[in-house]
């Protein structure tokens, strides 16, 4: 019985591992192929099935004029938009979360929990509902196809995540900390900046990681609200897909775009194992 359980457990883990890794391995081998080894039948192992070359990787940094795809600029656009929007969301979200965790608000029937729910419920909003008014609105103030426009939209996507994680985190930071600071003569802002924030760094990191994940992986708004002036990485790579489909550069660019977030996976796991994520979902 016990042996069967252990066997099944490892069997399942191995099957899932293969499933998780398969597309990455496929992309990795494909990125070294040329036209012949993609279109002449399915090939797997470099040097045995096909002769690897670096063409797929080289075109990534060539300018389009020389037949390259140049993903350097979209890459930095993506980084810039994601980081700026995450930073703004974290700052505003943390302030609001602190208020919701420490003070009581009452306006008619609206109480703390309702305000918290209002923040979080913005995730329910299907992107398509916002996309049409945003499209018309941004085009009327000439922010369509610009980085600023995208950052504004991303704040709506990311702030709910920041508030959600930080409210739970502040609830776990003992109130005595702020009270002691206030008695010691700090004003509320000093107490928040000097005492509460330093004790909330794990929460801030987790919230930051989630904002970065959900900002980095967004495609929809970038796709609808930008065209040629500003291109984000996912849009650029998907555009490659529609034309002749050069599988090798497609695979190489996919791997390059996925790479930075693998680091995020390590950080998230670290905080998960320490138990810093546990409060967030109750």
């Amino acid at each position, binding site marked *: 019985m016990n042996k069967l*359980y252990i066997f099944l*457990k490892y069997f*399942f*883990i191995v099957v*899932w591992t293969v*499933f*998780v890794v*398969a597309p990455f391995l496929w992309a990795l081998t*494909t990125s070294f192929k040329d036209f012949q080894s993609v279109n002449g039948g*399915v090939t797997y192992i470099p040097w045995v099935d096909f002769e690897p070359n670096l063409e797929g990787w080289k075109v990534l940094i060539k300018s389009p004029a020389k037949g390259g795809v140049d993903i350097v600029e979209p890459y930095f656009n993506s980084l810039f938009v994601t980081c700026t929007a995450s930073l703004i969301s974290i700052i*505003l*979200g943390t*302030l*609001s979360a602190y*208020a*919701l965790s420490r*003070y009581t*608000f009452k306006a008619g029937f609206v109480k703390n929990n309702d*305000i918290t729910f209002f923040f979080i419920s913005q*995730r*329910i*909003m*299907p*992107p*398509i*509902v916002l996309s*049409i*008014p945003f499209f*018309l609105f941004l085009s009327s103030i000439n922010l369509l196809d610009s980085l600023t426009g995208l950052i504004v939209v991303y*704040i*709506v996507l990311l*702030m*709910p995540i920041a508030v959600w994680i930080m409210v739970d985190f502040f609830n776990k930071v003992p109130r005595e900390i702020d009270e002691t600071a206030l008695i010691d003569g700090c004003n509320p*802002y000093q107490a*928040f900046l000097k005492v509460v924030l330093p004790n909330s760094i794990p929460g801030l990191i987790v919230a930051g990681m989630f904002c970065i994940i959900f900002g*980095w992986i967004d*495609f929809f708004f970038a796709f*609808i609200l930008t065209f040629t002036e500003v291109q984000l*990485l*996912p849009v650029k*790579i*998907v555009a490659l*897909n529609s034309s002749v489909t050069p*599988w090798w550069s*497609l*695979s190489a660019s*996919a791997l390059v*775009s*996925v790479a930075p977030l*693998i680091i995020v*996976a390590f950080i*998230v796991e670290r905080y*998960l*194992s320490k*138990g810093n*994520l*546990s409060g*967030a*979902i*109750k």
Partner: protein
Amino acid sequence: MNFKHKYFFLFPGLFVLIGILIFPIIFVVRLSLSGWNSYNPGLDYIGLENYIRLFTDDPRFWESFFRLSFLSVTTVILQYVIGFALAHMVWKDIKFKRFFRVLFLVPMMTTPVIMTVIWRTFFHESLGPVNDMLSVFGVAPKWLTDPVIAKFTVIIVEVWQWTPFMFLLLLAGLLSLPKEPFLAAAIDGASPVRKFIYVTFPLMAPISIGAIIIRLIEASKIMDTVYVLTSGGPGTSTETSSFYIFIKGLREFQMGYAASMSFTYLIIMIISLTIIAKVLTKLLLKE
């Protein structure tokens, strides 16, 4: 505590969010009452005409909505079962525990559309590895062009992409459980299966509800995967509500009609998610 300070903390975030959102929402409602399209761009007033068209004369919207329900419910159930199993397996000590934890998290860190581009080559009918391996058995499923199989391809990709999120939430929950009930079960000599049914699962019920709702909310937005993988095809067999609204609004520029659809869609989403949350709470929290 001082009463004035609290507003300085709360209001910047709240007002930025309301400021960015309030205009679009009011605008969608107003737009849905107009006949804005590419010939006639403008906010005229045509009453409830768009809504009447939607409710009486547009089976494609309702089909896409039921398809979306099917896809999101199926993927979330699969994600929950697999995610729970995986989380349970790497919860206690196994070899390379932290390696597997990181590995199982990786797919959610990847951009869905970009991975979907890779999946497209993976499931390519003549040049992809899946059909190449299946050719040993003499079968070659049309992963992307058969109306039925294409749905399952979407499900496979969604499960790959988002099971890690479920895994993350459930593992965080498992790690936060108190130790005492498990000690008691061990003293009573409960078998692993009984321990799971009577101790682990009930303790995890509130976390499960949270995780399922969060995933359902995200799954109800399925759109980029579909756009890249099949473009809603073959025919309309993988078209979801968001995708249909996208076609009407931003491809055919029937803004007014698309606005009425998106407002209806939002209302349906809010109502059905509330009902699902209530039902799940009743089912899983019996005592």
